[in-house]
């Protein structure tokens, strides 16, 4: 029987036009200088969606680049996976609306899945499953996020870190005889849900006049219940435990050693977290790819953006084995290996 092996064919990304620079942030948060913001976050600029620009708009533009830069035609896409926590509506499914906007065939499956920083790994896992069980030939995996719309402008803890972006990845069936994507490690710990959350707007807590009341926290940040809240210390502690464990488990499952990995691409959470994880795992710095300087933390898009940048900088080449690790909101985490083809 002919092999049905999933491979990553192409990755594209799209950034909104508006720039949020450290100069703007230093004006809004006078306690911090431009230099201090760059030194602490490692970020030079974040890109922010326009007022009426949705995550799906960025996602459609990223996906259109796939059709420009590959031989895959839109009528060949038989599954669209959209990872987002900024959907257009509660319902319908944003991926269904994107099927129409992208001119994908009616025979195409489409679904949204709600994950953040671990989302790209889960998307690759779903795409691999669809392809290798014969359900799809060409899967379009889109990650699209506009956290900026959830952020209070006076909340330094998140405004300095997050940027908006979307990516599109074409995952195709090939006849490769060896596994190209995988194995996978997944993990979930819902006890951490409260540490990275937009409390209102869903069914659990409705938006109201009371929920919109802005209060100052103990660190001088302002937000209401309708805004994104992040407990940075708790998130950091979670990653200190979950990420090294996921890396070890993935190496065990794949029978590989650290030295067998040509490039490590972790979710680009922030400079501090990445530097610490790199040191803790004793990874060689030249194999630990960094790409947040011009985007900030773009949630589920950081890993595909980094992959694209690593390719264009020739840090990732055909034949390389790359380890991808996503972790964050949920808590949710995932890790996988990809042999670059």
């Amino acid at each position: 029987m002919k092999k049905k092996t999933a491979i990553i064919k192409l990755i594209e990304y799209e950034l909104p036009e508006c720039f949020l620079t450290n100069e703007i942030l230093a004006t809004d948060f006078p306690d911090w200088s431009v230099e201090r913001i760059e030194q602490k976050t490692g970020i030079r600029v974040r890109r922010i969606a326009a007022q009426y620009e949705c995550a799906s708009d960025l996602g459609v533009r990223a996906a259109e680049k796939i059709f420009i830069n590959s031989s895959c035609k839109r009528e060949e896409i038989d599954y669209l996976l959209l990872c987002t926590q900024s959907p257009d509506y509660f319902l319908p499914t944003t991926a269904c609306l994107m099927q129409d906007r992208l001119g994908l065939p009616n025979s195409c499956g489409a679904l949204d899945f709600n994950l953040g920083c671990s989302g790209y790994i889960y998307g690759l896992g779903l795409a691999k499953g669809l392809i290798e069980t014969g359900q799809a030939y060409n899967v379009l995996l889109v990650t699209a996020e506009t956290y900026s719309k959830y952020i209070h402008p006076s909340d330094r803890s998140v405004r300095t870190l997050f940027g908006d972006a979307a990516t599109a990845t074409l995952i195709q069936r090939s006849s490769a005889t060896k596994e190209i994507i995988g194995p996978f490690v997944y993990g979930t710990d819902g006890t951490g849900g409260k540490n990275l959350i937009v409390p209102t707007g869903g069914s659990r807590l409705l938006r109201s006049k009371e929920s919109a009341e802005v209060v100052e926290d103990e660190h001088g940040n302002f937000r209401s219940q309708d805004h994104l809240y992040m407990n940075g210390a708790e998130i950091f502690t979670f990653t200190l435990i979950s990420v090294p464990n996921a890396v070890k488990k993935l190496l065990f499952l794949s029978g590989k050693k650290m030295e067998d990995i040509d490039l490590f691409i972790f979710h680009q959470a922030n400079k501090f977290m990445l530097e610490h994880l790199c040191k803790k795992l004793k990874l060689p710095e030249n194999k630990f790819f960094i790409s947040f300087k011009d985007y900030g933390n773009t949630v589920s898009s950081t890993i595909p953006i980094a992959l694209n940048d690593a390719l264009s900088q020739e840090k990732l080449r055909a034949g390389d084995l790359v380890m991808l690790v996503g972790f964050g909101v949920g808590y949710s985490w995932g890790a996988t290996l990809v042999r670059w083809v």
Partner: protein
Amino acid sequence: MNKQEFIVLLEGVVEAEPGTITGNETIESIPGWDSLAIVSFIAMIDESLGITLSPKKIADAKSVDDLVALIGDNII
């Protein structure tokens, strides 16, 4: 790690001049002890002692001695 080494580590975390923290002050009175410093403190303790401290317990600490107590037997 002894208490003096711990204080030096703490001074590094809050970017204070050496010798400015005596060890007897309340945490609130230490300039620079903010959310970033707490994350930095967790990282430093993880790096030097291999212990993952609970952010909630750090937030509950009132004095430098309370922080020392979190590290337990690892401080002499």
